[in-house]
């Protein structure tokens, strides 16, 4: 399974997005607000999920804001920071 599919499945199963399928999540889909509709607590969940499933850490709020903008930016962040 490629990183994109793995990430989509992780988001759907761990963030209570049970009404979505992986095909529903677009690269340019905003994660917060009008896109996937995640909220601030989900940002914490994302930090923990990245550490657990991809061994990738978010250093600070600024890095988190950039990485968590859309599904595509999150995917790029993972791919850029995975060892």
């Amino acid at each position: 399974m490629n990183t994109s599919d793995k990430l989509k499945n992780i988001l759907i199963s761990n963030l209570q997005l049970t009404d979505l399928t992986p095909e529903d999540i677009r690269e340019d889909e905003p994660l917060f607000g009008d896109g996937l509709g995640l909220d601030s607590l989900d940002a914490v969940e994302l930090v923990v999920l990245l550490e657990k499933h991809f061994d990738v850490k978010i250093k600070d709020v600024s890095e988190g804001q950039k990485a968590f903008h859309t599904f595509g930016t999150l995917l790029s962040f993972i791919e850029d920071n995975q060892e």
Partner: protein
Amino acid sequence: MSHWSSKSIASSFQHQIFYWAIRMGKRPIAYFMLAFVVFWYTLTPKVRKRSYPYISRRFPKTNLLGKWLHAYRLNLSFGLNLVDRAALGILDDIEFTADDKDKTLISELLAKGHGVILLTAHVGSWQTAFAALDFLDRPQSVVLHRAQDDVDQQYFEHRPGGSPVSIIDPMGPLGGSLEMLDVLRRGEVLCISGDRVMGSDRNVVTVNFLDDPIAVPMSVYRLASLTGAPVVVVFSKRIHGKHIHIWLETTITVPVNLDNNTKTYTLYAQKYIRGLENFVMEHPYHYFNFFNIWNNEN
């Protein structure tokens, strides 16, 4: 979902009159003016009725005149807290007391290295009580939102040097949540109120408060489970103009690594709300949520 605003109902000019009275050493004048200002505002239906959802549940047998009197007392109590908050910043003449056993327990929990969540509510002297945290030997961060057009000042805004604690804005980037996580991961103190939902209602828990359901944020308990931080419920109350007492109401231990299903955290949120109920039963005029927090009321 009920909405609230932190915006003051009084104008900037009105606030400045009170600040001036306090600066001139005339706090009794500020209290005297307050009684009339509160009377005037309590006559206004829009202001008066903000507290009615609470008053009708806390005092279920009260009649219309009784409701007005309860609203006046509640508004006056809130006003007194605001005057004293300003006095703390301008005159620094308020004594904070707490039982040594409560302080010791919090310090011992903090020493375990997972941080501590000091959980309170919009009651008592919540906006001033964090001035009393200097007995803790770790940095403290307070989750505090200030509306852009809000004109009343926090106590530390009356003095040079700014806030003695870090402020995390829950309406800031990503709701301040990453900063909250970092605070606890560093083993520090996070102070937060748990009785209001800010922004999204996606991650909320439904609990009973005064026999009717309300929604409260799940985030406190989820953060506790993710970090191992104990939750310590603390409340405070104005005893008189120069004395605020703080006490530990209960502690909540949330097991680590729980799932993130909202229902998982109902038990912990309900324990917090039971503590809040104890508070309002004993101190009914120190509850300061001036909006309808109950889900099922039109």
